[in-house]
């Protein structure tokens, strides 16, 4: 495994995880929900297009998954680097 008790390694891993998560966060809301909506116009869903669904429901679902994924990964990282709370 990576260095134990290496605070900067722990922090770098955290920042990497945040960056990855925020890219998905932005892609689903600002991307699919707003800016890329015309590109998704061909994909029909319940009387409208996929972009509309992302803007009104899909993005919120992705937000929830992202937070739980982040919390789960961070708990593992905490243990891996020995910085978890006893």
């Amino acid at each position, binding site marked *: 495994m990576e260095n134990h008790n290496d*605070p900067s390694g*722990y*922090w770098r891993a*955290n*920042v990497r995880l*945040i960056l990855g*998560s*925020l890219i998905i*966060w932005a892609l689903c*809301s*600002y991307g699919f*929900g*707003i*800016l890329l*909506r*015309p590109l998704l116009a061909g994909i029909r*869903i*319940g*009387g*409208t*297009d996929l972009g*509309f*669904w992302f*803007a*009104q*429901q899909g*993005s*919120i*679902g992705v*937000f*929830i998954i*992202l*937070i*739980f994924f*982040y*919390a789960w990964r*961070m*708990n593992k990282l*905490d243990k891996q680097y*020995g*910085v*978890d*709370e*006893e």
Partner: protein
Amino acid sequence: MSQFTINIIFVGLSFALYFGIAIWARAGSTSEFYVAGGGVHPVVNGMATAADWMSAASFISMAGLLAAGGYGASTYLMGWTGGYVLLAMLLAPYLRKFGKFTVPDFIGDRFYSKTAAMIAVVCLIIASTTYVIGQMTGAGVAFSRFLEVENTTGLIIAAVVVFFYAVLGGMKGITYTQVAQYVVLMIAYTIPAVFISLELTGNPIPGLGLFSNHIESGVPILTKLDQVVTDLGFTAYTADVPNKLNMVLFTLSLMIGTAGLPHVIIRFFTVPKVADARWTAGWTLVFISLLYFTAPAVGAMARLNLIDTIYPQGVEEPAIDYDQRPDWMRTWEDTGLIKYTDLNNDGRIQMYNDSGLGAAETALASAQTEGGDVAAATTAVETARVAHDLEVDGRFADAGWAGNELDVNADILVLANPEIAQLPPWVIGLIAAGGLAAALSTAAGLLLAISSAISHDLIKRNLNPNISDKGELLVARITMSVAIVVATWLGINPPGFAAQVVALAFGIAGASLFPALMMGIFSKRVNNIGAIAGMLTGLISILVYIFVFKGWFFISGTANFPDTADYWLFGISPLSFGAIGALLNFIVAFIVSYATKAPPLHIQELVESVRSPRGAGGAIDH
């Protein structure tokens, strides 16, 4: 049993429940008062935070905004939820590790500056007070409509209830009351939505019903809605927006504003561990999303139901007679939130997009009677009439329509929903209790944020650092009582600008507090001078941009430019400027910090310790 008695029973029962919880959860120490002793389970805390967050705006106004704005109003759905991702990853766990009671606590310590803490206190008080006004007015509407009491009497009852559980119980009492309020408001919101969704689509889950087929016409409900609104001259419900830059910035402003609002952040100080702060954000969003998945369905279906009520034989056929209007319209007309003017004197209610003709006629009439630029008003009427007569291949002109005759305030959609759908009286009683739960739970959270800023950050930190725990608790209770009195007074005499100041709350939280908190955690280099310069830049830029379009200090007539897209900088509305203010804050803070001395070693160590969860312990005093 009369509707009034049923409403009284529902509201009375919910209030009795809050009282009971208040007595059970009295606070004995400052730690219990400010952060509920730091021992709240993440799921419970998530539910309480959801009630804290979902205000009168979410419960009462959002579905109306969606009904009126269609796709364009998706901004509120994404903006008011996406901020929790930022909270979970960028702020909450680290601020929990820091382990103090308030937001200015962190800013003051991290930037080793009383000035920085004071700026944070000022931002917090402006943002929270403007927000409280909205809750009190929301509670006032619910009281005057459902309990048939004077607005003032209703607000005083509400204030007494909040006083009882917030002042006695502090965060501990508020947290457990909010759990009960969450359950009440969720049931109240969902039940009418389920009935309406069943009626229109046969699907009992409103969020899925929105994308199902409309039973009556056999086409998807959104397709049907697009058809009828375009037949009435409106933009299609699902139509794309032309100004994407503004939509992106508005959404971003709401997200960072959500993440920066102090009454939301302090909720994360109440859990036992750093890991719990992360889980809390997730659970909060789960509980919020239960309402937010339903809201777009409520908005779309309410719009369809309303059009169906006005045009029972379809939008191509004549509208209903005013004398035949349903009972709910009559009751809401009494509150002034629905207005009818028979412009073409045919006794029917025409509701459609009149290209501004009706509004222009009214302006002309007032210019003629009260004095004003009659010539300009006449030109405006003529321009609007040309547009009106060309609309939908001249159908409106041929039918002899002379302008939109029905004004429906968007705020009544959720409250009137059970009546529009002809649901039994107890559902209406439930809605009354739910609307009050939403307003009161948020008001209590805000009042706590205000009182802790004053008693803890202002008095304990600056004026009397030697104050005892007991003394501070007493001061906290007194400041909260004063805050309740002020909020009630502002609710009874709402400033004319109540609707506009919400932009201010989000703008200040997003442009000033959010960047300062984030830089305090993610940079070791940003120092006291940089943070102060950044926060002031964010604060001043957002204030100036809002005041320039909405009037200086919201005094009408002092605006420098009309508040329309033609005058906005790059088409960015004052509501969307929070994101730009935050960007300026970041830039200025970094430039100034790198031009001045790095923070002292013990501050860099503080940042190091905030980043690592180990050794969090409970929220502690200085």
